[in-house]
């Protein structure tokens, strides 16, 4: 099975305190530690497990700058076979549709049975998987938390639906899946793996290589633009609990008890 996983380099929320910059145009990025988007990492782990069971290759692809090579190498050290970096100044400022357009152009250069994305990334929009499937005219399942390979034509996927219930779908290949965290337990990146992929070349594909221009990607083509970032002001009935974590937990339990949330 030929599997492609789309991954993104994002600020590591476990390592950073995220603050909005003074202009409200973005978050403060100066001192941020970056890593691979958590959802994408689950997708890559799932892809590696599928490959190990049924054979094939796992390719990881990202749209990003030179620094994004790090997440590709990281996922390759974890076990992905190939990495492709899609990088061009022209891509800067792309909206979700723009990113999906870039990915689609790359995907059409290859032949993949299964395309995976994380369910969402740092910005939480969760658009790319669905748009990509639509643009490629492929079947799509979102928030997938279980995959069973039935044949080279069809797989079964589990999705979590409202109220924690589980739904199972059969879906024809090729298809696009967006992967939910918890689908597996991603392995750690072993130290030897890092060295093994250190000398592997990662091809960089630019807008020209993909037949793209500013009319379809980048800031000029973006129809969704971020205009403001701020911490919402406290609404009525909202209360910020303060103190140490333990103190906050105690206060929360008290409140929940008082309001009948827990008995």
């Amino acid at each position, binding site marked *: 099975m030929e599997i492609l996983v789309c991954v993104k380099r994002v600020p*590591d929320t*476990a390592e950073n305190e995220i603050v909005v910059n003074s202009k409200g145009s973005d978050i403060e990025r100066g001192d941020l530690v970056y*890593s691979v988007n958590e959802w994408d990492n689950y997708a890559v782990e799932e892809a590696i497990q599928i490959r190990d069971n049924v054979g094939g290759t796992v390719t990881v692809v990202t749209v990003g700058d030179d620094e994004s*090579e*790090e997440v590709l*190498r*990281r996922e390759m*050290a974890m076990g992905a076979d190939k990495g492709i970096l899609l990088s061009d100044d022209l891509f800067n400022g792309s909206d979700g549709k723009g990113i999906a357009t870039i990915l689609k152009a790359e995907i059409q250069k290859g032949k993949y049975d299964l395309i995976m994305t994380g369910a969402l990334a740092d910005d939480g929009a969760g658009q790319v998987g669905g748009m990509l499937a639509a643009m490629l005219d492929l079947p799509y399942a979102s928030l997938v938390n279980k995959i069973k390979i039935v044949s080279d034509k069809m797989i079964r996927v589990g999705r979590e639906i409202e109220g924690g219930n589980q739904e199972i779908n059969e879906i024809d290949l090729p298809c696009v899946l967006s992967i939910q965290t918890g689908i597996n337990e991603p392995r*750690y*990146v*072993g*130290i*030897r*793996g*890092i*060295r093994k992929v*250190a000398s592997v070349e990662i091809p960089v594909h630019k807008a020209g290589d993909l037949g793209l221009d500013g009319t379809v990607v980048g800031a000029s083509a973006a129809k969704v633009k971020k205009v403001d970032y701020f911490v919402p002001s406290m609404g009525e009935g909202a209360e910020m609990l*303060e*103190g*140490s*974590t333990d103190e906050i937990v105690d206060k929360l339990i008290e409140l929940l008890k008082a309001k009948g949330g827990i008995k």
Partner: protein
Amino acid sequence: MDFALSVDHEILRDSVRKFAEKEIQPVARELDKKEEFSYETMQKMAELGLFGVFVSEKYGGQEMDYLSYIIATEEIARVDGSHAATVAAENSLGIGPIYYFGNEAQKQKYLPRLCSGEALWGFGLTEANAGSDAANSKTSAVLDGDEWVINGSKIFITNASTKISAGVTVLCKTGTRSDGKPELSCILVETGTPGYEARVMHDKMMWRGSNTSSLFFEDCRVPKENLLGERGHGFHQMMKTLDGGRLSIGAMGLGGAQGCFEMALRYSKEREQFGKPIGKFQVNAFKLADMALEIECARLLLYKACWLRDNDMPFSKEAAMAKLHCSEVMRNCANHAVQLHGGYGLMQEFDVERFYRDQKLLEIGEGTSEVQRIVIARYIGAL
């Protein structure tokens, strides 16, 4: 000049950090309390590839550079000193001497099992009456036919008496040189050899999750081939080993200091007195600023020493400096971190308490701070 770490070093740090936070941090306090060496975390560290980091793949190693090993040790030390001790002692002292001075047969025989983490190996230099003055070792080895007969004892030896300890490299007096000085040689002794016993040492103040032993040799016979490298080269081998080992103690100081700093910063933002977070009082903010500054300097010094080593340049002076400085930076950081935690910092429930204790070893093991100053003073021509 380029201060950026390579992509591979960044990935390595990210990987070891996540591993340490998830697998070691949650169990470290309990292991410290029970004074227990964990075979479970040992195995997980082995699977990650933390043993034989700089050893060629031919012998089962990871074949990374020395800086990679140092970053890995630093990241483990950021959450726990005992686990970092197991890793640092094994790589620098257990695996290092066999890898650098062993013959092909010895390397083939021991390294694969040590690099896979199935087995541990100790480094027996210190004796009850020969600590800083290790050249004064009295443990003797006499050649009798095809065998060395070893008598004596060693003390404070890391990784030598676990269930998976496969043996030790022992510094022995094998004769007297023509200039009247003792001839010292290193000999490999496998666990289970009659006449050799390793006993666990209990009741340590620090590194309580790491294994420390006293070793006893009573007419212990090992094959002649167990000599490591050449006869009479033992002291030189031990000193070379300690040069590398000092970098890993430096890594423990740096990582430990980083851990203290992060705990202190977090707590200073959370804890409120007089109506505001304690970190907002300038006297406390300045402590945090000093910690950040000292850690930055320590990291530059340590990484530079690694860079020298990785580029085959002399690094002994810088290794001594890095070991000394990183240990003292961690001391300052642990001290500030406990101070910022107030009474809570003195309770075992808070990890800073353990860091405060664990730090002390760094100023004593692998050459005390006084000895490092002697080494540096000699290099600069002051002594």
